[in-house]
């Protein structure tokens, strides 16, 4: 148990908030979610079509550019703001 905990603690997790423009329907948010989940380093994603926000939990390996690309790949969506906690 102790060993596992130590390994988890090593990877620094961070929360990133993306503001995404162009989503207008429920399948839009699930597309963006699906695409973001494939980005290396991303552990968890919640995208809301209501607030135009995507909440990403990721480790340090994640790259902002990769996330932006993933969002655009899912359709005509664009990341307009990135905030890191």
């Amino acid at each position, binding site marked *: 148990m102790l060993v596992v905990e130590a390994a988890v603690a090593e990877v620094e997790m961070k929360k990133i908030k993306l503001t995404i423009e162009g989503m207008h329907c429920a399948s839009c948010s699930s597309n963006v979610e699906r695409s973001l989940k494939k980005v290396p380093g991303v552990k968890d994603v*919640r995208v809301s079509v*209501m607030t135009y926000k995507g909440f990403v939990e990721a480790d340090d390996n994640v790259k902002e550019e990769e996330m932006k690309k993933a969002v655009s790949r899912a*359709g*005509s969506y664009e990341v307009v703001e990135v905030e890191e906690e």
Partner: protein
Amino acid sequence: MKESIEEREIAGWKRKLIGAWVFTIPIMLIMYSGMVFGLEIVSMKWMPIVSLVLGFPVIFIFGWRTIKAGMRGLFTFYFNMDSLIALGSVIAYITGALHFFGLTLDYSGAASMIMTIFVTGKYIESKARGKASSEIGKLLELGAKKARVLRGKEEIEIDISDVKVGEVLIVKPGEKIPTDGVVVKGESSIDESMVTGESLSTDKFVKSLVIGATVNQDGVLHVKATKIGKDTFLANIIKLVEEAQGSKVPIQRFADKITSVFVPVILMLAGLTFINWHLFTQDISRAIGVAISVLVIACPCALGLATPIALTVGSGIGAKRGILIRRGEAIQTMKEVGTVIFDKTGTITKGKPEVTNVYSVAKGKENEVLIVAASLEKLSEHPIARAIVDKVDGKRPKGVKKFKILRGRGVEGLMGRKQILIGNRTLMKERKVDVKKVEEKTKNFEEDGKTTMIVAQGKKVLGVVAVADSIKEDSVEAVKKLQDSGYKTVMITGDNERTAKAIARDVGIDDIIADVLPGDKAKRVEELQKSGMVAFVGDGVNDAPALKQANVGIAMGTGTDIAIEAGDIVLAKGSLVGVVQAINLSKATFGKIKQNLFWAFAYNVVAIPLAVAGVLHPVIAEIAMALSSITVVTNANLLRRKRI
């Protein structure tokens, strides 16, 4: 401020809507004047030409974004509803051209109408969505823009973003407090309703904490900034609401699963419909028409929006009243909860105990007992300790050595050469102190709901100090309301049974769990969970484990601090009435979600087979689709009418 994404989206749909109707209305006039009144403005033979020419800008200019995104989706496998609309309208448009090659039915007029109705529906929907999330917009605009800062002896006005921690800000009557801080000069009352939902204004004087964005009423205040930017109370509330609105409610999972496969399934269904109709009727035109109906009637939006839109409206209404739903899950769990457990100190009571009685075994030595107690308690952080110290304020306490906190029992220390003990019966028993001389008094105090501390020197009992924490004004009302709605109420406390019973009696609480050590609260909550789901209400600072353990944790905000990480629901003001409101709001929101999901499912279950059966014209199908998502969004907005 530049316009928000939301406003841009609404404006975008509006532009498309106007453009699309400008070209679609002539098509409709020409088409229906022939069909209905027999007036052939244009020979029916040339009708497809009219539709193709006038329809071109509708579909390929005003609908271009939809067509592009939809078609791209077909190749990248990121389908969304654009894919359905794009395919439906483009196929319909092409039938106009194919008309000249022998296709009997021409849907090119319908193509324009489909696109026009689609953008109209989207416009109405985006406006309603904007309304649904309007509260967060209001919160974002709540903050002060400017601050008047004292630099040297000069008052200068600066941008709020330039304020630094530690700077002294001057706030005049009627102005907003620029940021969180502490009053260093002046007195005033402040209206905090916009952030905490508390309607009564609060009096502030030197050392009082103030919250940014609240409104100064009648005095000039000098406020030292303690928190700025994203550390402020308001920023934290906004963050909580945003996160909550993006969180998921378990009931939604099934709908989400359907949404994620919805579009490809409909595409296949439309294909199969086309093949079957063609096989059985040998009428390719009719088969195309039916397939178009299937494409455009199906809408993942009603289903996918049903839950998030209701959650957004619900959490928005909550935020306005100081009820912050952190996790969407809580509103679903809430309806299973049968028992509400309250922490006593700071939740039911004000959390500011005061010394009410001092009893001395030796006649007339009350003051000495108190000073002995205060000398030891001065070294403790416990709220009760502070009450005793405050009582002797000004009188010099004596020096104490070898001070020790005995967890859950009391404290001990050496005063000169005398061994002093202060604590409960357990401690006295442990140290073999005979408490017979104070037994009667202690019992009386406890029956009045007071917490008692026995003071002893060596094995000799000196006296008793009684401390009481007064009950919050609205605790009784809140407990009564919960009981009326069928909840069992329980109070958990570290006090002994007699004291706890007295308080429970005053508040009207059903059940008590007394003598609980601070670390054991979560365990007691777990025990109660064996007989059903429970909600725990605590102040969020000491109660985090219990809040987590409970099925629903309701954390009370204490003054200017807000416990972000503890609790599924956070109350910005420390009133128990908020608990009742939070429960009502959760139930109402969840009810709305269920209603929405029901309608969205029902719509698709009825409409899609009708389209497959070929009884709906593509234009009717598109109107039905637009109405289905508008209905869901509008229904969610009706939540506002509910009295919480």
